[in-house]
């Protein structure tokens, strides 16, 4: 089955986006690399490297000590093996743990001073680092600044390998009282906040990868939204791995104080390389009373080529702690990239009446392996959670939903609804569901449903009988299958995600 050739006329009633998406099939769009001089820390991991990273970031002593303690714990930990992913043993001493563009040696004071090559990189990715521009994919993108509607502004923190290149709209955010900067900057400028919250949701020794991250994280984003503030724009971080053999370990800390609101977007890509690369991130979210956080991810790391060569190993720990009553958190993720994904964005529902939601689309094609899901830990009374997970497997991929819903004895009158659906395209792939359900009180209700099926022949036949070719028809059916999750995404991401769904399934039909 070949992708649509450009001369094919668009059939009536076919969504233009679907057609565009199918047309764009063929390559990983973000597989190019940026030729730029880099500073590397020596290969391997030991106390000196940890110290070096800390020094490079100008960190205070307490931070260095924190990292060293994490490193000490990491050396005693074993890599987890319970996930349904199979990859060659990672040599943790054969990686670079710190890589920084040479031009970033002295931190630029403003975006105007940033190396044009870096700015170009983000431009090419559709990530505007000039404040007058707005995210690609949104109407009017690339047009004159006056056309960009002010309410659709998105502040971006761009992370390139180990360092944050720049953060946009900092001034405007500051006026609203919102702190949005790189975590290295926050450690220097807001130590009291970082000290109070860092590691309070994902403890240093939480798991092998989180511990590794705690020792060597180089940069990431920091957000603090003060009480009662509704963040005036969407915040976004864009992660780009560029250097070869380099692990990326970013750390994100988001604090939504009482009654505040913030919506946060995360995007990631990497060049196409033959060797695999390591990515182990930690995201911690603290949600206080009446606050709300939306966290959306479109993960599009390089998935490896169609023979399973190269790609990113994505081991991520993401957790939100609803500390206050009526706190609310919503995770939305579209996982299309990475050779191996190990990721379980979780919610600790501690406050009474707090709410957690998890919407996920995980697509695995070719030799990709995804083991992803969520944990909903109900501790407080009247807490609610909802899980909607859509897994799509194609090619020779393995896709696993793994989740936990836990109702503690004190979480009276709580409620969970879980739905995980899997779709199989082709007979070489696998779709698996591994839910854990623990109910320890009787006033709570837990419902879990899961289905696995293939793309419905009747639906395909219907589309084909109306003149679509098979690949178009599959893309349409799959988009329909994912609709519930796509609708939960902020507009900036929804369109990109919809196209990604089709692109990721490239070559899976026929």
């Amino acid at each position, binding site marked *: 089955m070949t992708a649509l050739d450009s001369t094919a006329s668009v059939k009536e009633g076919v969504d233009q986006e679907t057609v565009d998406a199918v047309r764009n099939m063929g390559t990983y769009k973000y597989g190019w690399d940026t030729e730029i001089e880099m500073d590397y820390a020596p290969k391997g991991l030991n106390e000196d490297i940890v110290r070096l990273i800390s020094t490079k970031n100008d960190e205070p002593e307490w931070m260095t000590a924190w990292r060293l303690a994490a490193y000490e714990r990491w050396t005693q930990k074993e890599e987890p093996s319970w996930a349904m992913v199979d990859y060659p043993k990672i040599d943790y001493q054969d990686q670079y743990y710190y890589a920084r563009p040479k031009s970033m040696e002295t931190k630029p004071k403003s975006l105007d001073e940033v190396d044009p090559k870096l700015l170009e990189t983000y431009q090419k990715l559709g990530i505007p680092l000039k404040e007058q521009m707005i995210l690609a994919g949104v109407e009017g993108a690339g047009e004159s600044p006056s056309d960009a509607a002010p309410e659709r502004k998105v502040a971006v923190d761009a992370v390139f390998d180990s360092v944050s290149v720049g953060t946009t709209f900092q001034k405007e955010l500051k006026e609203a009282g919102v702190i949005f900067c790189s975590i290295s900057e926050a450690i220097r400028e807001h130590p009291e906040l970082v000290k109070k919250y860092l590691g309070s949701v994902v403890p240093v020794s939480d798991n092998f990868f989180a511990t590794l991250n705690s020792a060597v994280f180089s940069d990431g984003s920091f957000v603090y939204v003060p009480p009662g503030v509704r963040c005036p724009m969407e915040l976004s971080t864009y992660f780009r791995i560029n250097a070869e053999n380099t692990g990326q370990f970013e750390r994100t800390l988001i604090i939504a104080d009482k009654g505040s609101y913030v919506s946060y977007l995360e995007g990631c890509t990497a060049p196409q390389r033959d060797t695999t690369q390591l990515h182990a991130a930690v995201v911690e979210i603290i949600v206080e009373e009446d606050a709300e956080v939306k966290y959306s991810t479109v993960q599009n790391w390089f998935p490896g080529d169609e023979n399973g060569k190269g790609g990113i190993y994505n081991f991520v720990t993401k957790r939100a702690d609803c500390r206050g009553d009526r706190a609310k958190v919503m995770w939305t993720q579209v996982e299309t990239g990475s050779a191996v994904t190990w990721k379980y964005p979780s919610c600790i529902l501690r406050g009474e009446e707090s709410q957690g939601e998890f919407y996920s689309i995980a697509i695995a094609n070719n030799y990709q392996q995804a083991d992803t899901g969520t944990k909903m830990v109900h501790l407080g009374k009247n807490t609610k959670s909802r899980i909607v997970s859509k897994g799509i497997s194609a090619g020779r991929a393995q896709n696993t939903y793994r989740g936990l819903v836990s109702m503690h004895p004190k979480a009276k009158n709580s409620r969970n609804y879980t739905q995980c659906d899997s779709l199989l*395209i082709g007979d070489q792939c696998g*779709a698996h569901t591994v839910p854990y*359900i623990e109910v320890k009180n009787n006033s709570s209700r*837990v*419902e*879990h449903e*899961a289905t696995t099926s293939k793309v419905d022949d009747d639906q395909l036949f219907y589309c084909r009988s109306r003149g679509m070719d098979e690949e178009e028809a599959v893309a349409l059916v799959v988009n329909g299958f994912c609709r519930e999750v796509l609708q939960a995404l902020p507009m900036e991401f929804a369109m990109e995600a919809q196209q990604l769904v089709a692109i990721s399934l490239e070559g899976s039909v026929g």
Partner: protein
Amino acid sequence: MGALAKPRADALEARLAALQLPEGGWAEPARRDALARLSATGLPQGRDEYWKYTRPDTLNAPEAPEAALFAGSETLIFSQRERLKITFVDGVFDPDQSDALELEGITIERLSEAANRDIHWAKDLYGVLEARGQDPVARPLAALNTAFAADGILIHVTGRPSKPVSLVYQHRGTRSDAILHHVVKVESGAEMTLLENGPAAARFNKVLEVDVADGGRFHHVRAQGRDHERRAATHIFARLGRESLFKSFTMTANGVLTRNECVIEFTGDDAVAHVAGASMGDGDFHHDDTVFITHDAVNCESRQVFKKVLRNGATGVFQGKILVKKDAQQTDGYQISQSLLLDEDSQFLAKPELEIYADDVACSHGSTSGAIDDDALYYLRSRGVPRREAQDMLTLSFLAEALAEIEDEDLAEEIRERLEAWLSRRRG
């Protein structure tokens, strides 16, 4: 044993010291193989993923923990029906309380007698199905059973016997430790019903291996109950041929610890397997249903229906898995696990898994947990039904889907009466 970690090796050594491997006959090589399997894995431990929700300590201990005998008087279930009765007392065959082992269309032998011969049909099955069931998850207690079971029943079904075979287990010694191993071979086109009831021993380890040939049919209805303090670890290993049928239902009422594992493998196309359970627990009751169904043939149907009613701090566990192999197209797999928690202290722990490698399948699973529906209760009360009775009615209707899996209506009715009696006893 060298590869095992110290605590595991020690636990195994202590357990093995209390056991003796029966020697001689066709069974001995099978027993030695099983012992090798057990030695390779060691006994289950609390940190094993497969034992996440059930503590195996008392099942592993060298000696059975003490269990008081049932003091009440109660007519035993199935006792009023036409059947061929075989009784085991604390895991030992009791000829005085058993019928003659003769029935048309079927041959029945004791393992302890048949094992001494040089050749026997059971040689191809004894420990064979159990060994197949050790992958991908080890089931060490089953391997231990194959190695050390001295008694049990071997049933060869060649026709359609006129009545069910009924195994009755009696518990007499407060520290009795019973190990029984049964093998059933259902030939092509043959059909039988196997009944089991009784508490068996203070601690009971039982394996039932069932091989159903093409077009064969096997029905199994089991009632585990009464003696509150008993502990049991049971395994069913079934292999199903083309167009065969396997149906197993278990009712469990009380028991400090019950772990029922059921491992089913479809090897022939167009076969059907249904496994169901209704359990009721009160107080320090721990009940674990662990089911593993492997689809390795085309167009097979599997169904798992498990319902648990829990009160006064009882714990219900369900671990169910449907594995659909690459070429097992047109698989229809269904799995439901539900619990009704009658009070604040009880808990339900579930892990319903799907692992699917074929694309043309329809597999689904559902799991729910909650209290009695207030609206339904209100409805019944508004029609003059007293609260307690209304609760029982709703509880029985909750269990009905599992009971519907029993094909024989009389048997289903008998089970239903037992469930009702259990509820009314607790109504007080």
